């Protein structure tokens, strides 16, 4: 498995191609999160993180996923720092012999990365900067697992 927390941009397609090799692979599921300009006013997004805890928290989430499902490999990349609209923020990919395990594990990883990995998003528009508030629906999603 591979967990990368970085300020550098990444190429989600190239990452996925590199991840998709290996013997006995039956299913690859991936998710890529992109900086979204909901109402046409977003100038940039700043992502703060808790260096040290971030890597530990993501690793714990990945370990949990590996224990719950039959996975051959997991990839998590999450950026921090200043991101522009349209840039990939993060990606998750799961590799399994079986489709159901790959889908479920990717879904689980996304739910937990959203609410349990110490990242905080701040959006900058012409009117200034505001911290993105966590949504109850994201916290509630954890009870699914």
């Amino acid at each position, binding site marked *: 498995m591979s967990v990368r927390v970085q300020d550098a941009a990444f190429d989600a397609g190239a990452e996925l191609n590199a991840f998709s090799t290996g013997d006995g692979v039956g299913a690859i599921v991936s998710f890529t999160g992109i900086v979204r300009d909901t109402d046409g006013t977003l100038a940039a997004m700043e992502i*703060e993180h808790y260096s040290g805890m971030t890597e530990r928290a993501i690793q714990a989430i990945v370990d949990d996923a590996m224990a719950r499902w039959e996975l051959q490999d997991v990839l998590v990349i999450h950026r921090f720092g200043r991101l522009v609209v349209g840039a990939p923020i993060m990606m998750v990919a799961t590799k399994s012999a079986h489709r159901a395990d790959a889908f479920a594990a990717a879904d689980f990883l996304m739910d937990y990365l*959203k609410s349990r*990995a*110490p990242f*905080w998003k701040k959006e900058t528009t012409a009117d200034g900067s505001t911290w993105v508030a966590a949504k109850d629906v994201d916290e509630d999603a954890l009870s699914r697992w």
Partner: protein
Amino acid sequence: MYFAWVRERIGVPFEDVQTTAETVSDLVAELSAREDRYAAAFADVSALRVALDQELADFSAPLAGVREVAFFPPMTGG
């Protein structure tokens, strides 16, 4: 350590604090009594999360043996 708007409200990303507080809640009360900027940041602890030595914890958790305490709002990763 403080992150996101907690950091901005308190004005520093981290600081050394010598305390005899037994729990996280005791530490919050001690800091809040010290200066208004702490009281403002800790006004509603239900809107905050705490990590002890980089593991999420409850505000009732004991501080004995803990080296690093971090306060931050609910996380918004992904």
